Each structure stands twice: as structure tokens, then as C-alpha cells.
């Protein structure tokens, strides 16, 4: 819409992530490195999954709209699975790194615990995922117009920003849960995280008319995950 909407949506989408970064991560260089590396891992997973989708699109009939839509849904689910695979890969990498970190630190143990690494890795995933889903929308919101000339809702920008906010925080919590599940070998936790991620992605794919409806579903999953995380911690 205008600059006001641009800043409003930017603050909504990235406000908590920014404040988390400023107060918990920025002081410690090790955490910053883990954050950036986590973001990079998410980016890699997106690259690979988009490559798969792109090849499938090019190989298929471009006129068949239904097939294209189905391929898109397949692409999204494949991307979710790939993100979780990369989250696992990052966990393995960080586990290997703790021994090295313990060796170079002054004390006996490593300067950063697995739980803290899980939180930082999850936040890294979340920030990158949020950026990718929001930057396009933000740049369009700078112009004078708003969404709606083809019949869509005019609350699209706010909804997208709130969705990005939720996605960022969800990724953080899933990171913590996932690493905890891998540590304690509780496979049902990992399965729950993956299935939740799939469920959320699936909800986004279904065209929901009222922005509010989408919101409530998001909020419920958010609460559930938060409670579970608190229990784990």
C-alpha cells in the first residue's frame, strides 16, 4: 500500500525475531555463527526442493492446470520433508562440532549447550523462512495500491505478515523439539514435529476465504507447540 504498510508489516513479521536476535544472540559470536549457518541450511533445502519442483514442472504439460496445481502441492510437501531432513543434518553437524568446541574452550565442557544450539538453529531456520516468504510481499506493499482488484481480500498484507511471524516462531520451537527428540532418541517427538510442519504447510495451501479463519488455525498450533516446548525445557 504505502510506506506505512511497509513498515507496519515489516515490524509485525520480523519484530519478535529481531528482538530475540538482539537480546539473546547478538552478544555471543558463536550463537551468531550457528544462526547464520542454520539459515544457510534452510536455504540449501529450499534450493534443492525448488530444483526438484522446477524439473517436474518443465517435464510436465504446461497447459494442464490441474496437473500444475498438484505438482505445486507435491512440491510444497517435498520441501517440508527436505527442510526436516536438513534440520537433522544440521543436528548431526552440530553434534560433531560440540567435541571440537569443547576442545578449544577454557572449561571442560563446550561453551554452548545442545539446547541453546537447538534454539539458535531453529531461530535461524525461522528467520530465513520468514524472509523468503515476506520480502516479496513487502516490496509490493511499497506501491500505492493494495490487494483486491481481482477479488482477493484487502487484508492480505497484514495476514501475510502475521503468518510470517508465526512461521518464524514455529520454526524456533520445532528446532528445540527436534534436537531434543534426537538427543533423547524419542522418535515420536520427531514424528510429531514433522507431521505438524506438514499440517501447517497443508493448511496454507488450501485456499481459505476468511483471513480470520486461517489465523485461528495458526494460533492453535502455535499454542500447542509453545506448551510442548515449555514442557521439554
Amino acid at each position, binding site marked *: *500500500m504505502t510506506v506505512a504498510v511497509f*513498515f507496519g508489516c515489516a515490524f509485525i513479521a520480523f*519484530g*519478535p525475531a*529481531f528482538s530475540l536476535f538482539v537480546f539473546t544472540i547478538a552478544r555471543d559470536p558463536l550463537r551468531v555463527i550457528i544462526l547464520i549457518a542454520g539459515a544457510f541450511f534452510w536455504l540449501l533445502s529450499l534450493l534443492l526442493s525448488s530444483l526438484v519442483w522446477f524439473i517436474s514442472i518443465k517435464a510436465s504439460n504446461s497447459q494442464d492446470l490441474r496437473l500444475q496445481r498438484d505438482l505445486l502441492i507435491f512440491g510444497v510437501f517435498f520441501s517440508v520433508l527436505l527442510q526436516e531432513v536438513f534440520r537433522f543434518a544440521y543436528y548431526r553437524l552440530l553434534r560433531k562440532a560440540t567435541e571440537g568446541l569443547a576442545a578449544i574452550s577454557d572449561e571442560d565442557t563446550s561453551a554452548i549447550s545442545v539446547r541453546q544450539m537447538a534454539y539458535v538453529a531453529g531461530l535461524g531456520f525461522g528467520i530465513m523462512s520468514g524472509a523468503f516468504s515476506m520480502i516479496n510481499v513487502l516490496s509490493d506493499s511499497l506501491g*500505492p495500491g493494495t490487494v483486491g*482488484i481481482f477479488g482477493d481480500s484487502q487484508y492480505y498484507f*497484514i495476514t501475510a505478515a502475521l503468518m510470517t511471524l508465526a512461521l518464524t516462531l514455529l520454526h524456533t520451537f520445532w528446532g528445540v523439539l527436534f534436537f531434543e527428540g534426537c538427543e533423547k532418541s524419542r522418535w515420536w517427538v520427531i514424528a510429531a514435529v514433522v507431521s505438524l510442519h506438514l499440517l501447517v504447510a497443508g493448511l496454507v495451501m488450501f485456499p481459505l476465504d476468511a483471513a480470520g479463519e486461517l489465523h485461528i488455525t495458526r494460533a492453535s498450533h502455535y499454542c500447542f507447540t509453545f506448551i510442548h516446548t515449555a514442557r521439554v525445557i
Partner: protein
Amino acid sequence: MMRMKNSSRVAGVAVIVSKTGLADNFSPHTTCPNQNTGVYSENYGPDLANCNVTVWNPFGNGLSYEDFAFPVFALKDENQTQVIRKCYEDHNQRVNGSAPKYPLCAMQLFSHMHAVTDTVTCMRRTDLQNRFSINPEVLCDPLSDFNVWTSTRPLNNSAKGHAADESVVIAATRLDGRSFFWEQAPAAEGTVSGIVTLLAAIQALYPVTQEAPPTRNIFFSFFQGEAFDYIGSSKMVYDMKRNDFVIDLDNVHSMLEIGQVGLHSGRSLWMHSDPISRQNKSVDTEVLEMMDRMRSAAAGLKLTVDHPSVSQPLPPSSFQRFLRERQIPGLVLTDHNTSFINRYYESMYDDAENLNVTYPPGLTPDEQLVYETDAAKSLAEVATLVARSLYVQAGGNESNLNNITADPKTVAQLLYGFVIQKNNSWFRSLLPPEVTKKGVNSILSSGPPQFYIGLGPRVHGPAHSVTRFVQYILANLTGSVTNLTESQCQNPSELSTENKDLFSYFWVSGPASVNSTSEPFCVRASVRLSKAVSPAFELLEYGSRNYSTWTESRWKSIRARIFLVASRELEMLTLGVGVAVLLLSLLVTYFISSKAELLFSSARETPTTTY
């Protein structure tokens, strides 16, 4: 439009151009066209100046000369207009008398112009840029293009100034038009009628002038830029004065100009003359003789020509610029006695319908090309009259007059090409191969040609499309086919048999038939172009009162878009929510992280004290 100009709430206007509901008359030009650059002023016929005697364009509302502070766009595409209408109906209409609710449909018009105020200001700024800046940014360009001229006896183009032993009768007409919108000027009655008449007259005259040449040379000239204070004719007169042209004013014997002649059907044609110059006895005698010759030439045709009974000035015409320098005997031939018959003078509605050029339904384009409409037949009559009068005026023998007849088929083809469709098979055969083969941006795009003068070679490529058409049509009608190859055609001076001073050489496509492609060949004709830019820009007098000082501003992009606009409250709400979320998250995070040890006392500190 004037109400919108004075209102402070109008940010732009989009005009939907449609054929239905056309007003009875509409002319955005002034009531007295070119009144400051004609011949009548305080020094010359003051009681005739400023249309005191006859208002030439009574329907004129002067809209083209108003300064609008907002963009005005013309929407011609029906699909786009439909989209805009739909957006308005869906979002902006009042429901039960209450104001429409946000989001509302809005339109943004981009047409940033680099030039401001007037020509003097923007040319001064351009000159400063050219002198002091490394990357000079030009703000505006003078309107310029080319006049087209030819003659029955070839004139040596390299010999400038007075041509010895040449007495010339000038036959002239204008090449351009304009309307309220940029580059929209169908100018059918205002300009095309004159062009077609003169071209057909040239074609009718040419064979006879080769067999039985008249005493004097006949010089045909098509002046570009006449709508903008006589750019072309003032430049030619200026060149003649400075001995920079093939002939000069001493060579000119008399002049006949063709004005608007398209709407005369059934009525008579009128010969206008200048009463002030006729106070001179010799000029008066010559003018009376010219009128007699015209009347006798018309006697054999189904036309009547007459002189207006009231002593009135000349209508706006290029002849006035010649009169400013020298009192030459001359006539202006029009279809109107006092005011214009054309009710859409210099507007975008002066098109084929205004000229009564209509075809019966069911004809293919090629059939329409050669179909002789009534308008074509009547213009052919006028062309015959013009050709015969010119022949006699130039001293030709009256016994040859019956051989001079304009061909209605040529007139029909010309009319079709100039008011209906310029991309037709005949035009394609006349033009060079690189023009006919080009893509979308060539001068042979679909639809009728537009007669706005444009900015000339430096900005827009070679000459304007209409100038090129007239040049190549003249080459076709008066030229001769040669055996030269393409490279010889480009450089004819290498051959001893060809004379580049007397002739121009054109490499044209040739007619294409269904089975085969066209075979290009070289045409030799004595058709030339002469620069038509106002002398004010050569003299650097940007505020000149004697010459045209019209310029056109430069711009970067002209486009429009429609979208929905949200209410201010929603935008502020979004910003407020964003700021609130940011502040809240900063507070919460700071609070939690500073009290982290207290809140997240982990299992390490479980008090299992053993006392």
C-alpha cells in the same frame, strides 16, 4: 474540460474515445488559426487581422492551446476501457446514496514532462546543459520534419539562389494536422483532401508537361508543420530570401494553394485572394486573370468556382507567408466561402467518416483499395480542375487541356491509403524493401496514418511516415524506371548517364503478387525533401514573434495503471500494530532474557538438599 482545469480536485483525466454519441461539432483549435503568424497584422490590413471580418473556425474552443496542469489520456482500446469501467462499478459506485467504502479503485497516470513554462525557458535550459554538462540532458526539441517538393522541369539542386531564366508557378498544400492529443491527427478533410488533390493533379499534369511543356516551370510543394504557425512554409520563404534554396522569390510568378477541398460536393469551390495586395494594379490584373483561367477550366467539368463576394482576407494558408515577403499574385482554393465547412477542424474526429469515405460492406482490403467512392470521384474532379488551371497558368496551350484528367482510380487508392489503411499493397509496392519488411515499429503499421509533424530525424529516425509516403508516391507518379542495381541506385554519381543534381534515386520494392515476391528496382525522379524547421531556432530567437517557436517536451515513460487503494485508517492501523508488536517483543524478550536464570532454573539446581 475547462471546469476540470479550474477545479482543485482533479488530478488527471482519462478520455474514452468512442464513435457513438459524437457531438455535432468539435474543434479544439482556436477560432482564428495561426492569427499571429499570418500576413495580416497592424502593418498589413489591420482591419482584416485577427478574424475581424470572417471567423474561420467558428466551432473552435481553443482547448489545444490551454495549459492543463494534469495529464489527459485518451483511451482507445475497448478492452482496457471495459476493465476500468468494471473496476469502477465494482468498487466506486454509490450504494443507496451513501459514499462508497474502501478499498476504492484508483488510477495512476504517468506522464512526467521534462520541459516547463514555455519554449524560451526550456531551450535556455537545454543550451545551458549542452554547454556545461558532460552528459547534456535535452529538455525539449523543436518540431521539425521535411517539406516535399518537385517540379515539372527538374531544377538543379546544387545551384542555390536565383535560378536564371526560371519563372515558376507554385502549387502548394499542407502535409500536416493536429488534434488535442499527441500524435493523433487523422486530418482527413483538413489535410488529406489537399494532399490527394495535388498528388492526382501532378499525375494528371505530368505526361502533358513532358510532351508539350508550358512556358513556365510548375513547382509543387507540400509544406509540413503548417498547423503550428507555418513551420514549413516559413522555412522555405526564409531560405528563398537568403538564397539558400533552388529558386528565390524573384523566380516566383504566381501561386495556387489547395486548402480544404473535400466537402464541396454539390456546392461550388471558392477562390480566395488577398485584397491588400490586389490594391497593386499589376497584382490585381494577374489575380483576375488567374480566376478567369480557373473558371474556364471548370466550365468543362461538373464544378463551379467562384470568388467570395465580400472583401475578406485569405483563410489560414501557406500563401500568407509568401505574401509577408513579396506581393505575389495567388489564389487559395477551398470548399468554404466564409467559415470552414469542416466541423471537426484539427480534431481527432476529422477522419474518413467526416470526409464521407465509406465503402460498401463485404469488400476485401484489396477491393476497397481500388473502389471508387463518391468522395474519390469528387476529389478527382477538383484535381482535374487544379491541373488544368496550373497548365494554363504556366503558359501551356489550351488545346492540350482535354488530355489533362485526373485518374479516379489513383485518387481512390490515395484516399484509401491516407484515411483508412496505410498498410496496403499499393503503398507497399512504392516503398523501399527495408520499410516493408520491418517489424512492428515500421511506418507501415495498421490503420490510417497520423499527420502530426513530430520531432524529425534526430529523435525519431528518418522522415515522418506521411512525408515518406508523399515522397515515394511522387517518385512513382512522376519518376521513370531505370536499370540500375541497388548499389548504383545508392551512388548514382559514379555513372555518367545519371545526374544527381537534377534527380533523386529511389530503390523501391515493386508490386508483389500472390505467387511471387516483389522485384525491387530503381526509380529516378526529381522529388526532393527540404528541411522544415522554424527559422527561429536557426536564429536562436526562441521568443520570436515572426516565426513559429513550437517545441515538444521530452519524457521518459507514459503509462497508466489501475489498482485498489486502502483507507488511511487501515494503513495507520497496520503501522500501529507493527510498532506495537515490535515494542512488545523487545520488552518481553529483554525482560525474559535478563531474568533468564531465575525463570529457567533448570534441573541442575533442583534442591535435593541432604542435610
